[in-house]
């Protein structure tokens, strides 16, 4: 809050006479009434008229379109077949975004007018020609120009859909309310109540949340543990054939996960899958891998290890190779045993370098749709759950709810919950990582 206030208090205000301040405030007031008026009064015509043009364009847009769009957003349509609620919602969101942008523009225009006045009344101020002023303005905005492709993509491709799904989370959009045959209604927090508090759905939600957490931790920790172990073993200087081993270990990472998952899925077949055939040779027959709760979960974690250990192995191998040899030599001269060296030097250094990537991997595992969906499809079905199985994680439940059961509103509400969970987790963690700390505004 104080940060915000300090930004509103104008810079270099000290040593400015009250008269200039007053005049500046007057100009700002003029700009507040009609955008750019303050500039025109100070004979900065081009900028002033540009600002006015923006305001006029905005007012026209809102007279002919925007007001109606926002009204439509509020009602979501009245006449079925004629009003399409979803389209009205999208237009409403766009209108609100434009409105927000205009408010920002308006505030910037007021503040800018005031600053401009202070600047030109300074005795050291040298007036610039229009062209100079323009090129200076352009220079100021270069960063924004460069940023714009990415920002537009993120805004249109990620944020708009996200806001849209957040809006759906507060409506009654499902299989029996499909626009344009029906109009949608705002239902407030009802969907969240249904998911989190009431009966069947909340039971399903918390059951799945529990397994999602187990899955997230296990399917990240196990591959990383194996990867680190292999990297350490490969680091043995007496080892021969290191290259061949490495080549083999990289394969699961190089093969597109989609394909290896389908192949592994068929290998877990109870009757004729390769795994049970091999176990059969040892006298263990017909393990029901994917059809029982805990064996299916175990199988999933095995699969996550198979598909996931290569990358951490390669990373840790790289890191171990780059550890300063002198430190280890020094420790050895001091008489440290090799296990001591490993636990006191190699491992901590490794953990330090690998932890940011591991944390990202956690978020990836939390949303690992492909592994669950392609291996078990969420099965075996749990009769106590609402349209979900024992191995479903939140993201696959979300998918099923939306695509199979057409409960779009619950799906959206669930995605909002996921959004909040991930956002909290990632903000909490990323603030700590070095990538962010080191990147100061130097």
């Amino acid at each position: 809050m104080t940060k915000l206030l300090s930004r509103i208090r104008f810079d270099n205000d000290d040593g400015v006479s009250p008269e200039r301040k007053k005049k500046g405030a007057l100009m700002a007031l003029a700009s507040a009434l009609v955008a750019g008026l303050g500039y025109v009064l100070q004979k900065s015509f081009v900028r002033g008229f540009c600002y006015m043009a923006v305001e006029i364009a905005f007012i026209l847009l809102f007279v002919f379109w925007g007001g109606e769009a926002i009204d439509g957003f509020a009602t979501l349509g009245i006449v079925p077949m004629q009003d399409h609620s979803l389209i009205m919602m999208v237009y409403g969101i766009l209108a609100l975004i434009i409105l927000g942008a205009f408010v920002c523009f308006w505030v910037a225009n007021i503040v800018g007018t005031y600053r401009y006045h202070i600047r030109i009344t300074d005795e050291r101020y040298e007036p610039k020609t229009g062209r100079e002023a323009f090129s200076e303005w352009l220079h100021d905005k270069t960063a924004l120009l460069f940023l714009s492709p990415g920002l537009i993509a993120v805004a249109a491709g990620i944020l708009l859909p996200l806001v849209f799904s957040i809006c759906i989370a507060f409506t009654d959009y499902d299989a029996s309310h499909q626009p344009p045959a029906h109009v949608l209604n705002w239902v407030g927090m009802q969907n969240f109540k249904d998911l989190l508090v009431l009966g069947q759905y909340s039971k399903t939600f918390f059951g799945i949340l529990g397994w999602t957490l187990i899955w997230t931790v296990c399917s990240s920790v196990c591959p990383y543990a194996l990867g680190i172990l292999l990297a350490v073993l490969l680091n043995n200087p007496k080892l021969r054939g290191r290259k061949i081993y490495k080549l083999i270990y990289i394969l699961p990472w190089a093969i597109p996960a989609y394909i290896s998952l389908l192949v592994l899925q068929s290998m877990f077949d109870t009757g004729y899958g390769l795994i049970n055939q091999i176990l059969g040779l040892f006298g263990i027959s017909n393990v029901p891998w994917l059809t029982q709760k805990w064996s299916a979960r175990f199988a999933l974690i095995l699969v996550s290890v198979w598909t996931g250990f290569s990358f951490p192995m390669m990373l840790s191998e790289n890191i171990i190779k780059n550890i300063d040899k002198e430190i280890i030599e020094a420790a050895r001269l001091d008489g440290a045993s090799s296990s001591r060296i490993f636990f006191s030097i190699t491992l901590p250094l490794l953990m330090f370098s690998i932890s940011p990537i591991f944390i990202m991997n956690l978020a990836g595992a939390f949303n690992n749709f492909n592994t669950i969906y392609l291996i078990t499809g969420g099965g075996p079905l749990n009769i106590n759950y609402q349209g979900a199985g024992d191995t479903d994680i939140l993201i696959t439940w979300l998918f099923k709810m939306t695509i199979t059961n057409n409960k779009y509103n619950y799906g959206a509400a669930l995605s909002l919950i996921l959004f909040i969970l991930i956002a909290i987790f990632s903000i909490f963690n990323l603030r700590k990582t070095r990538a962010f700390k080191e990147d100061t505004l130097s």
Partner: protein
Amino acid sequence: MTNETVLNNTVSEIPVAAQKEAPQKRQHKQSVTDIIKLIVTYLVLTIVAVIVLLPIIYIVLMAFNAEKSLYIDTVFPTKYSFDAFVRLFENTDFLVWYGNTLLVGAMNAIGTLILVLPTSYALSRLRFKGRKYYLMVFLILQMFPGTMAMVAYYVLLNMLGLLDTYFGLVVIFSCTAVPGSTFMMKGFFDTIPHSLEEAAMLDGASRFQCVTKIVMPLAKPMIGLICLFGFGAPFGDYMLSKILITDPGKYTLALGIYQSIFSQSSTDYAMFAAAAILSSLPMTVIYMFLQKVIINGLSGATK
């Protein structure tokens, strides 16, 4: 440690012969544990290697299986032939899917690059207000899977008439790839020393020339990497493609294999195996060749 100090303290009192013997003994002892360690190492490494290779060998053998079914009585098939590949090309649109996927991949690689390059350059080289917040937003958004907003994607693309088009698919692939790729690219730009550009500018080069003549050539590995990831996206994505593409003539490989081949794999597993091998081959080969570049790129992004 204690042994050694004892040795040092008493060194003058021990006869010369004994002095020579002691280190030898220790060496001998160490080499025994070393050998045991080495054996265990080999054992673990080999077991893991076998487990890794098993599915791969299995699927290759199954692709050349003369019988169609997965349900054979032996662990590995006994008769081999090319029939599965012939069936794959004759009975399915495998080549069409392949072409579609290559097309989508190429479009996506170019699209991602156009969106990512200027943005990451600005984040790395230019200093402006709120830069840290942009970085933060990108970092968080990078963790969002497209699944979360799939209804929104469907409705929006439907409104724009882009459903069932590659353009729509590519827009979503490349937009969702922007935050992550921008971060990788920015990380790489950060490693290119500013002094190079400053020197060139002193020699009269414009900022634009600096970018095209110095920064971009140096950033080639990472540019290649982002292209590769963009290119690979349609090979690995099933879910978004399934929602957005419904026309079987426009299927990508992932979609085609799952919808038309894997769903029938209980009757013709050999054909699925053949499709799996052929479709994973290009990406696998590229990844194997470029592994060093990729690992350096990925670890550099978070450094």
